[in-house]
Every structure is written in structure tokens, then in C-alpha cells.
């Protein structure tokens, strides 16, 4: 049994309570939701915190998927399983179910949360790639109830680092809804439940036969999950075609920055960035058309 260093533990009873605890304890404290990334790091003593603030009791307040006219709003404590099974997301953004099916295993999905995944900011993390693909906005709440909204590009400031300050909490993810959308996700892993060797998400918005907008997000090929503006620029206004997907794949391979590790060589990961970009764009277009 791997045992963590000593820490103290408190359960938050409301978002404001959690923030007040964070205000008092600062950087010595860490919020814990599903705990499936944090606890292993603590048991390996790679992460050591004096205090854990358990926010699982806030699921009533922060666990929801709500469809509005312009956006889908997801509470930060919404669990993987709820994302996987959400009819709202299935209709608007099937990329979520694609990704959730290949995230860890059912036991982890029962506990792990969207907010926890994003705040862990692991460069191989699937939901960060999904949110990047969908141009998500992150709602961060601080002392006194002050809220600010940041883009995914601004949310991730580096590996395992986010824009969330020591006395703040991520409360909601907002996904803009535009007509004609199709989306898809694909991941290559060495074994079910492993982190991605590379994964890619794609979303396209069609009007008539043409691509109004397109976005591709990649995971595990750079310091953080990466959105690729050049692909969006290349695809806008074009008719979908295999040669267009080829072009997008080539851009993906060029714009990522993978490293060689146990999961694969940098060359292979670059190849996958292209291959998975092609596959997910193809599928996203099929879905947008159907």
C-alpha cells in the first residue's frame, strides 16, 4: 500500500465555503473532486498538500448539463458518467461521448469530474482536448462571488498549471452552440484506460455544403492540449473533401510538438496527429450532414 504524507481534510458545504477555505489556506490546500489523478500523485508523494478540501458534496450545486439557446452550460462537478450519458450532449456535441468511452474505466468515470480533469491540466487529458475543440469558456469564481470567464487557451498556462488562482474555483464550462455542427473524437492508446499516445477532437460547422468554421484540438503532443488555428483558417469556406482532410492532417502534424517517450516516438505521434485529424474531421462532417 502506497501511503501519502500527512494532510488535513475538510468537506466543503457550499461553493462559497470552499472559496473561504481556499482564501484562508492558500497554496497549501487543494480541492479534491473525483480524486483519481490527485490521490495517486499524493500516494506516490509527487504531490504533497497540507489540506484537502473535498467538494463532492457540492454536486447538487455544480453537477448539471443545461442547454440554452446559445450555449450548453456544464457544471464543473459533473461526472464523466453523466457526460457520457447526457442526452443534451449526445444531441449537440457527440464528441463528448466519443471521448468519454475511452477515458479510463467505469469506476473512474463514476467519480471523475469535468472540472477536475481540466484543472489537473495534464497534457494528455481527453476532456481538455474536447473543450479546446469546442471553444469552451471556463467560468472561475473567487472571493466574494466574483466570476471571470476565460478561454481554454488562457485557462491552461502550462503542464499541470491553470489560470485558476489559489483562492478560486472552476465552477462552469460554457460551450457555444452554433447551427450545422458535427463533432468527433479519436484516441490511440496502448491499452484500454491508458493515457493517450495521441488523441484528436474535431468540430465543424456547415452551412449548405461549405465549412463555416472548423476546430481541431489535440492531446499528448505538446505541453498542453492544443487548438490549431491554422486548420480553422484552412478549412473555413471550403467544401469538405478527402484532400482537405489531408491538408488539415498535414497542418496538425506540423503544428504539434510531441516528445519521444514510453508511449511512442515523436515521429509516430506526429503521424497520429495527422491520421486522427483526418479521421475525426471526416466523422465530424458526416455527423454535421446527418
Amino acid at each position: 500500500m502506497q501511503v501519502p504524507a500527512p494532510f488535513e481534510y475538510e468537506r466543503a458545504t457550499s461553493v462559497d465555503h470552499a472559496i473561504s477555505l481556499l482564501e484562508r489556506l492558500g497554496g497549501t490546500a487543494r480541492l479534491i473532486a473525483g480524486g483519481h489523478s490527485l490521490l495517486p500523485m499524493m500516494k506516490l508523494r509527487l504531490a504533497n498538500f497540507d489540506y484537502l478540501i473535498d467538494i463532492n458534496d457540492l454536486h447538487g450545486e455544480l453537477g448539471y448539463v443545461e442547454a440554452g439557446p446559445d450555449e450548453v452550460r456544464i457544471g464543473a462537478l459533473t461526472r464523466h458518467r453523466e457526460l457520457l450519458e447526457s442526452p443534451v450532449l449526445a444531441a449537440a456535441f457527440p464528441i463528448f461521448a466519443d471521448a468519454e468511452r475511452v477515458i479510463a474505466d467505469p469506476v473512474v468515470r463514476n467519480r471523475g469530474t469535468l472540472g477536475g480533469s481540466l484543472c489537473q491540466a495534464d497534457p494528455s487529458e481527453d476532456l481538455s482536448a474536447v473543450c479546446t475543440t469546442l471553444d469552451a469558456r471556463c467560468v472561475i469564481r473567487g472571493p466574494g462571488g466574483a466570476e471571470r470567464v476565460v478561454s481554454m487557451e488562457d485557462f491552461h498556462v502550462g503542464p499541470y498549471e491553470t489560470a485558476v488562482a489559489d483562492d478560486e474555483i472552476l465552477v462552469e464550462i460554457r460551450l457555444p452552440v452554433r447551427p450545422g455542427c458535427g463533432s468527433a473524437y479519436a484516441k490511440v492508446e496502448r491499452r484500454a484506460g491508458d493515457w493517450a499516445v495521441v488523441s484528436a477532437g474535431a468540430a465543424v460547422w456547415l452551412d449548405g455544403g461549405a465549412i463555416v468554421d472548423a476546430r481541431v484540438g489535440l492531446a499528448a503532443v505538446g505541453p498542453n492540449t492544443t487548438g490549431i488555428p491554422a486548420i480553422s483558417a484552412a478549412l473555413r469556406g471550403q467544401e469538405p473533401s478527402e484532400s482537405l482532410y489531408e491538408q488539415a492532417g498535414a497542418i496538425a502534424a506540423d503544428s504539434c510538438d510531441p516528445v519521444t517517450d514510453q508511449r511512442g516516438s515523436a515521429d509516430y505521434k506526429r503521424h497520429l496527429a495527422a491520421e486522427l485529424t483526418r479521421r475525426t474531421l471526416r466523422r465530424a462532417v458526416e455527423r454535421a450532414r446527418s
Partner: protein
Amino acid sequence: MTTVHERVDTFHDNDQKPVGYGRMLRKEDPRFLRGRGRYVDDVQLPGMLHLAILRSPVAHARIVSIDTSAAEASPGVKAVVTGAMLAQQNLAWMPTLSNDVQAVLATDKVRFQGQEVAFVVAEDRYAARDALELIDVEYDVLDPVIDARRALESDAPLIRDDLDGKTNNHCFDWETGDEAATEAVFARADVVVSQDLVYPRVHPAPMETCGAVADYDAVDGKLRLWSTTQAPHAHRTLYAIVAGLPEHKIQVISPDIGGGFGNKVPIYPGYVCAIVASIVTGKPVKWMEDRSENLISTGFARDYIMRGEIAATRDGRILGIRTNVLADHGAFNGTAAPVKYPAGFFGVFTGSYDIEAAYCKMTAVYTNKAPGGVAYACSFRITEAVYLVERIVDCLADELGMDPAELRLKNFIQPEQFPYTTKTGWVYDSGNYEPTMRLAMEMAGYDELRREQAEKRARGELMGIGIAFFTEAVGAGPRKDMDILGLGMADGCELRVHPTGKAVVRLSVQSQGQGHETTFAQIVAEEIGIPPADIEVLHGDTDNTPFGLGTYGSRSTPVSGAAAALVARKVRDKARIIASGMLEVSVADLEWERGAFHVAGDPGRSVTIQDIALRAHGAGDLPEGIEGGLEAQICYNPSNLTYPHGAYICVVDIDPGTAQVTVRRFIAVDDCGTRINPMIIEGQVHGGLTDGVGMALMEMIAFDEDGNCLGASLMDYLIPTSLEVPDWETGFTVTPSPHHPIGAKGVGESATVGSPPAIVNAVIDALKPFGVRHADMPLTPSRVWDAMRGQARPPI
């Protein structure tokens, strides 16, 4: 002779067949299914303390100083012990199972990352673990030797300067076969194929990690040790030798064990530390390693860098096999193998083929990696041997343009040649290979698969069919040849029939999940007719079982199973004499029908084994010269190993875009002679095949150039899940062992041995359109993609 069976034998469980062999649910399962198993970590003793081990963060360094004062002052800490303190008691070093020595706690140098440096004993495991961080060790870091190919270079750092006169990292040389004769057949062969192969370092990774609870009673001088061991009796003797404790005052208890796979054969420093800690503190002390400790410091497996060469005629007659092996044994040679076999049973690398000559030359070296070269579900290195021969036979088939099934069929040892002495001196007891191969091909629909493959290739799809045919050598072993540190590899067995006809059988082997409590009850039941439910199987406690060498190398059924059958026959012989008295006829006039003796020609006059048991213990006279009671004990010394065989066929699909391999089908036909409980055999085969998928596709203990272990958690060291494996298709043939009392052969490791080459052969077959002839394990998507581009590289 061989009988060939349908793919699935009919389900006749022991409800219809009240005694003996056949399918029956495992007797031990209710306690596991209900969470009532009792493992080492479940042992709680009054006043028990907890031990944690400080391990080296670097692969090679001189220890300059160790300051334990802060740790000693940490709350709850009872003792902090270093190598220097053990050295005062002459306990800093201990013998390995291969006549090398290994540090219990490092005194002079650390020689691999994860090596034991000091330990803390505290009131709970948290306090013990916290105090480790307060021990201040100053290391003078040295260059490590990580690449075995460079270990013998003249400027390589010297690892084992503890050994007198040692000037290099050479561990041992070993050879087998006839070098000149092999050279001669290679010289006249039409075709010679050579291939470099790496069998990378893998880890057994049992679900339960290693650990112990030591309880030394200073008043009566008795040491009780609960430990995760596959060989409790051998461990007891070694503790007596190492620690100088009298052997009759040592009781080793191996309770329920959560998987072994060879990982729990050696004595690890942690066990010795727990014993020392109990003696020092006067309290019971528990040590349970965590997952990372298990992966980085305990016995690994494989790590063979091999060159295989095969010589043949143009029409596909194999003439000779030759191999050169570089073996990486880590920092200490902890190989668990019979002493005269430093390379285990690798000598069976000639496989299942009737060839003219063979030769192997092996060099083993020390490196700054975890010690061992231990068995891991490999029957003492047969895994490496079978991989070598089955891979190069496929290379030969490729070279000849011959179907790999046809090539194998053409070269099999024929049934009339058994017992067959191989060119490396192994005497295969029995075998009939062609029916086994044919059954596997029939189950697979081999010709149809080849047609499907041709169609898919035409469409650019990647499908592969891989075959492996193995012969195993299990059941070590005859005491004239085989011992471990001087202990003969025989096994005892004791059977007592109680007055009411219930029985207890005591074994010297120890189950780690193999189902001994069921299989051994069935063996005894078959012989004396007491239902398995009425037979208690006791094992894993040295005070309560006869001496023997334990469970590994698939030896339980070949050795201890024979002992169980023979001890039951001994009891039956005595029962016959008692029955003759009860029925007032001569012994010669009695006929045995399972469970009872009756008078020949008069079946109505009979006594059951239960009647006899009551008479044996009860009032009334017994026949002249017969003592009361109904029990016996024997020690069985096998006359030879048993040689099970099998034919495996694997079908894979590869995604041409991502290079991901999917094992679509796997057909395994095993021949392990007499089958005691087919359900247990199938379970063993399923587990071994899953193991094979892991090794072939994902598992490897890798190191960086500084010697940091890159497989220190199950996030980094991948083991397969149910999602990576197909529904296994198993079949069997039966070729009994001629020398085993019930004709049984071992089967525990057959699937682990046979499956990796079948999977690799399938992947290579799928990649044929790319001109690929070989790629080393693990065949991860990245490595398969390299192979598709003609850039296959060894993993080390």
C-alpha cells in the same frame, strides 16, 4: 497413446461423478468470492509494528554516509536500521538462489535503483513511511552499466567490487549442444537463416505484492514468519542457514497468496529485515511492499538478447539450430533455477523438431538493474527458448516461401521416437504432435483464414495468422540432477484418513491461485474413493506439512501430484489388508472398485473405505502385523521431467493508419497428459494467454540511460485487461506421461510460454506486405509503425 478430443469436452461435473477427475467448482473459491481469503497483509498480531524500507534513488553510487538521527526522533518510530548495523551481526549480505550473494541492506555501494538501504520500524505504516524521508543518505554517484552489450567493455564501471578478485561484470558462461556437429550441418545446409531477437525484461506483477509478518518469541526462541512465498519449506531451511536460527524453531506460514508467477520464489531483503526487526524490537513486525517497490526491486524475468540461427534443406527439412545469448542478470544473480542449470531449461530451444545438431553459447553479465533472472511463469527460461525457436522457424518459413504450419508438420518429432533425446540432452517423455497441430488448425479454420487474409491483403487490409508449437519441460526435478542450494527437488505428501472416513492430505507445495485445494482432493479421491468434498488439503505451513520445494515451474502436479496419488495408493494398500480381515478372505480375493473392496465374484460382500477407516481406528483385531490408523507419508522423487506440448494459433488485425494491433482470435490446444480438473486447466490457460498478450504487445521494464526504472507503477508498466483479449478458444489432446503415476504433466505455464511467439508471428505475418521479417516485443502501436516503415528497432 494420444486421444484427440472435441473442442469442448462435455460438462460432467462431480455431482454426477462423485469422486475423482472431472470438472468441479473450486473448493477454495467460496472464501475468495466472499472476501474471506486470508493474506499476509490480513495478519494482525497484538503489538505489531510496521516496517518501511528506504531505497536507493540512483542506479550506482557509493554510500558516503547515512544519518538516521532525525528519523529516530520521528513520532512513533521504534528503530532505524542500516546496512552497517546488519554487518555487525554478519547479516548485511545473504546468499541468492544461484550461489551469488545479495545485499540485505547496502553497506558499501548501491547497485540498482530501488536497492534496500535502510529500514524504519514504527507504530504504523504511515509513521514508518514518513520517517524514511528523514533519513539523510549521502551518495557518491557512479556511472552505471545499463546496456548489457557494454557490460564487458574494458572501461565499463565495475559493479561487483564486493566479490574477491572481481575485475569485470562477467556473471557466467554456459554452453550446451555440440558446436562442431552444428557447424558441420550449417556448412552443408541449403538455407541458413539468422535473426537477432530480444526478449525484453518483464515483471510478474502479481496482484498481491510481497510482504511478511515476523514474530520472534525471545522466550521460547521460536520465529513464526507469515510470508508471501511459493516455497515455504525451502525458505525455512535458508533462513536457518542465513540467520543461524535452529530450523525446528522456524515456522514459515504462507497463507493465501495473491498470485506468484515466480515473483515469490526468492527470499527478498524485506523478509530478512522483518525478521531482524522482530528480533531487535521483541514485537511482531509487518512489512508489505507497495506496488512501486514490487515493480522496481523484486524478481524480473527474461532480458535475453539472442541471435537465432536455423539451417535447413531447400525443401524444408530443419537440420540444425544455433543460438548465442547475452543474458542480463541485474546487479546480483538471483536466478531461481536448479543449481546445475544457470540458464534454467533454456536447453530445450530445439523445440518440437527432430533435428541433427544444436548448439547454444550464453554469456551472462551484471548490470545496474534489479537482480534476478527469476522464473516468471516460464518453466525456468523455456519461455525464452520457445520464443527463439518458434520465431526463427517462422523466419525460415518466410525464407523458403513455405506455409509455417506445413514447415512445422514436416519437422515434428514422430510419436514412435519417444522417449526422444534431444541434441542438447533432454529426454522428452511422450508426445504426439501432429494430432494436436491438426486439431488447432481445424478449430481455427486455418485454410479459410488464409483465404480471408489473401482477400484482405488485396484490399490493403492487414491481417495476420501466427502459429506457435511448443514443448515444455516441467516438474523439476530428479534429485540426481536437480537441487536448489543443495536441497533436492522432491516433494513429500501425507494422507490421514479419519475414523469417519474423512481425510486430510498435507502437501509440500503451495498454491498461489492454481486451485490445489481442489486438484489434490480430486487426485486423492480418484485413488481411494473418498469424495473431494470430504478431503481437506493443507499446505503452506512448515510445521504442519511435509518437506518439499514448493510451487513454481509448473511442478505441483508433476511432482506433488504424483506424491498425492502414490500416498493414496499406499493407504489403499493398507486398507486392502484391513478389508481382508473384515471380509475374512485373503487379500488376493479382493477387488477394488473406487471407494470399496468386494470379494471377487461376490460383489454383495464389500466394505467401503469409510468402513475400513472406522475399523482401522476402532475396537477389534486387525490383521496380523497391521498397526492401527489409516495414514501414510511418502517423498516422491520424479524420474524425469514431464513434457507437455501445445499448438497455438493467433489471428490479429492491424489498423494500417494507427498501427494498433487487435488480437481477434486465439486458439489454444494443450496436451498436458491426464486432465484432473479441465476447468482449472482452462483457467490456467486463459491466464497464461492473457499474460502472453501483455508481453507481446505492451509489457516491458525499461530503463533510461541513468538506470532509472521507467516501469515503476502500473500507469507505466502496462498489463492487459479483458478489453485487450479475445474470447479464448481452447481444445486439448491427451498424451499421458509414461513415468508419472497418473500420467499427468504440468500445465501452469504452457500458455505463457506458447502464446508470445504465436502473437508476434501473427503480427509479423500481417506486416508481410511491408517486407517485415521480424520486430521485437513489445509490439506497441509506435513500434509496429516503425516496422511498417522498415525501421524496426530492438527495444533495448
